[in-house]
């Protein structure tokens, strides 16, 4: 059991700055999901922790041990950090059998032979791969190779494991199953896990805590999944973590109006006190598709362009004064209040909306 602390880490490729004085703590025994768009520096951070990349500044601690410090010139080499890693492409060695793959970390750490056999067996049992001990990786499916990689990362009994997009290459059903299993394995082993992904859905399913990384390589919010979903810290988190609608808001002496492209709709929304100061860039209101409800009497008028039945819900694409909004209505509600026909006009109400500074409109 150990926590991991990144302190003030900077890293760049040539002149391209990836991480700029980055700090983050992973608590002992938790799964922290680092979520961010491609190219934001998630993998770079993991490679710094593993020792595959050498940061320019900062320090990295595992427990109370410093494994990297730029100022004190400490850089524990990769092979002595004892951090398990599961790569996106598994990196299971194709010329070694499952058993040899899993035994390799122990062999390199000069564990006695009898103990190796014992621990390999345990690790393979943990990932349900005991019957494939003597198979070559080429004889295994993607999910099975994945498990071998996890067993190999677990077998060293390291305190920390890094998983870099480990399930991206699997199909949807297997992904779900693997996530459950990873969760289960982590419960059993108590390892601290840094899980890296760009897919917020799997992060939600797996994590104890989530850290959202912005494209510039900074963390904009750390918290439990509920925190992130219900109380997104900024517009980036709100947009990144799910489907979202944004409508520009006009504030004239406390009277709010939704300024759609072609029309303005007076609106009875409530502006929180801290937002009252008119921001120079203006305001937008953000709302999730399932937080918009149909109300035929509302002054906010929409025309339904298209509706798609998705099983558990209906997905509507509606025209709101020249803007497209996305509305989701769960099937239960639909059967209660009726499905809105394509082409018909109705009204909407916004629930659980939040205000964000407006983005500079990029020509769309």
């Amino acid at each position, binding site marked *: 059991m*150990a926590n991991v602390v990144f302190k003030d880490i900077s890293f760049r490729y040539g002149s391209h700055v990836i991480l700029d004085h980055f700090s983050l703590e992973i608590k002992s025994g938790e799964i922290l999901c680092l979520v961010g768009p491609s190219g934001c520096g998630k993998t770079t951070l993991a490679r710094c922790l*593993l*020792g*595959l990349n050498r940061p320019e500044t900062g320090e990295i601690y*595992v*427990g109370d*041990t*410093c*494994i990297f410090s730029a100022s*004190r*010139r*400490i*850089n*524990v*080499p*990769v*092979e*002595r*950090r*004892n*951090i*398990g*890693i599961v*790569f*996106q*492409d598994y*990196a299971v*060695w*194709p*010329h070694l059998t499952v058993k040899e793959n899993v035994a*390799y*970390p122990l062999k*390199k*750490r000069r564990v006695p032979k009898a103990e190796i056999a014992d621990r390999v067996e345990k690790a393979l049992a943990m990932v349900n791969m005991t019957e494939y001990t003597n198979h070559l990786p080429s004889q295994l499916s993607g999910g099975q190779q994945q498990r071998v*990689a996890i067993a*190999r990362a677990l077998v*060293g009994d390291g*305190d920390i494991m890094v998983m870099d997009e480990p399930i991206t290459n699997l199909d949807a059903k297997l992904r779900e199953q693997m996530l459950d299993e990873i969760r289960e394995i982590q419960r059993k082993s108590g390892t601290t896990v840094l899980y890296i992904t760009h897919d917020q859905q799997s992060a939600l399913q797996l994590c104890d805590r989530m850290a959202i990384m912005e494209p510039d390589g900074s963390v904009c919010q750390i918290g439990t999944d509920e925190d992130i979903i219900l109380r997104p810290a900024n517009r980036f988190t709100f947009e990144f973590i799910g489907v979202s609608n944004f409508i520009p808001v006009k504030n004239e002496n406390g009277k709010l109006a939704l300024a759609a492209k072609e029309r303005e709709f007076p609106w009875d929304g409530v502006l929180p006190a801290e937002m009252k100061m008119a921001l120079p860039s203006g305001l937008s209101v953000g709302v999730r598709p399932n937080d918009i409800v149909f109300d035929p009497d509302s002054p906010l008028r929409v025309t339904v362009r298209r509706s798609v039945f998705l099983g558990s819900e209906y997905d509507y694409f509606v025209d709101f004064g020249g803007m497209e909004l996305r509305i989701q209505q769960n099937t239960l509600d639909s059967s209660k209040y009726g499905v809105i026909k394509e082409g018909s006009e109705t009204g909407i109400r916004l629930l659980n909306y939040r205000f964000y500074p407006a983005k500079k409109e990029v020509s769309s």
Partner: protein
Amino acid sequence: MKRFRQNRDLAAVDGVHFGMGGILTGLCFILLLIVVVIPVVSIIYNAFFYQGHFDPTLFTEQLTDPGNLAAMWNTVKIAFWVTLLGTIVGTFYAWLLGRSDIPAKGLMRALFNIPYMFPPFLGAMAWDLLLNGRSGYLNKFLMSVFHLSSAPVNINSLGGIVFVELSYYFPFVFMQVVSALERMDPTLEECARIAGANQLTVIRKITLPLVVPAISAGALLILITSLAHFGVPSILGFSQGIYTLPTKIYAVISRTGGSFEGIRSGAALSIMLVIVVAVALMIQKKVLSSGSYDIIKGKSMRPTLIKLRGAKLPLLFLCVATLFLIVIVPLVMIFLVSLVKAYGLPLTPENFTLKNYSRIFAASGTIDSIRNSLFVSITAGILCMFMGTLIAYVVQKIRPRGKGVLEILSVLPYSLPGTVLAIGVILAWSGNILGISLYNTIWIILVAYLARYLSFSMKSSSAALLQVHPSLEEAARTCGASHMQSLTDITLPLIRPAMVSGFFLIFLPAMREVTTSILLYGPYTRTLGVQIYSLRDAGMIPQAAALGSVAIVIIIICNTIVTQATKDRKGV
């Protein structure tokens, strides 16, 4: 965790990762300096400097000599025709065997690869025996049958040289194109058919353009090899005074008995040859600027075969006739002449004897030459295998600052003619540098082979290393393996098949090599190729043919071992 307590001791460890990369990189530079840079610089220095002064008179003298200019012109003419015809012939047969429903494909493909295995100078010898302007067996036969006063075909001519080189070099294009055709996605052609194109249009507009990169790669190989080729023009051209630059260099040096003056003239001529090669490469690049297409997949697919219908039999006959002409005739000829009691006697059973074989095996020179060839070929193969892999690893995985330079240096000798390389090695290692003199020893041949064949193993290992994803080695590092251990445990086992095939890519051509060793051999260091060449030169043609037959048998045995060995390793 206790290990990590000694972090202060580990502070120095900071540089270790770089250290290993640094050591390997340094090693590469040193090896390439010795093997490549020093010989090349030696040639340039000796061609332009005399006793420490800049003195271009030798070079200009050589450049304006009409004999040399004629040789240069011959070199260009031969290379042009061999490349052009070789490309056409190779592409045609590749398509026929790769894409049509012609019968007995597997057998014919194997046969078409045979010329690639055999030393072209043996072929030249065979054709010389058959169609020599004065005494060729076939010529004599034709003259007596049709009562001609002169030989109908004279192989000792530019045309003859082109024909013999062509029959040995078109497989370069053939093999490249066949494999490209096999890896091509057949749906690309099917789509064109569905879109309404007829068979010929598909071949012209879809198939050919897609294999252009393969054709151009093969053509380049023919061009370089033909420009630098020594064996065929020396065997067919010397008697008629037809010289190419490589044979001219040999003639100049052997005329002066290997004196320094002769070697200097050779160096100046070498520069001419290098310039010709460089210009040819540039023109080739312009003419056949090749794009690479991703549509050619790495996987082998089952292409749709084109039905030849009525053309099947004539085309089959053409294939068989070609194979007969380029494979069977020279082989049989060499073998028959090796049995004949004296050169010139008719090839009839009553003139046959096995004495030639017993005679060559009784001579110590022959056994020595076989032993020498085996020794240098195996040693060069093993050393190049490791050096090439080392350089490939540094270039692909460590990627140091000077990796472009490393790459260029290691493939440079590939486009340097063997003759030129030999002169460079002589100039460099006959006592001028650090007093090291390897002249007349087997080591000088080894050094030349290392330079000449290094790029073969480097390319082979390089391609394999590209397939080894960096995460495999990184995973080993995180599992507690040092950089060196990750290399020996993971990377090397994964590229072992490529290393082994790199070895044979060097071993086989080195066994039949004559161009380089003809300039480097000493009294006790003849190679197999040199021994055959000098037996023939001394007029002992039946014995030369006997040794040639032995060489062919050795090559066939080695080749069988190779195919068996590489077959076993496929599973890795």
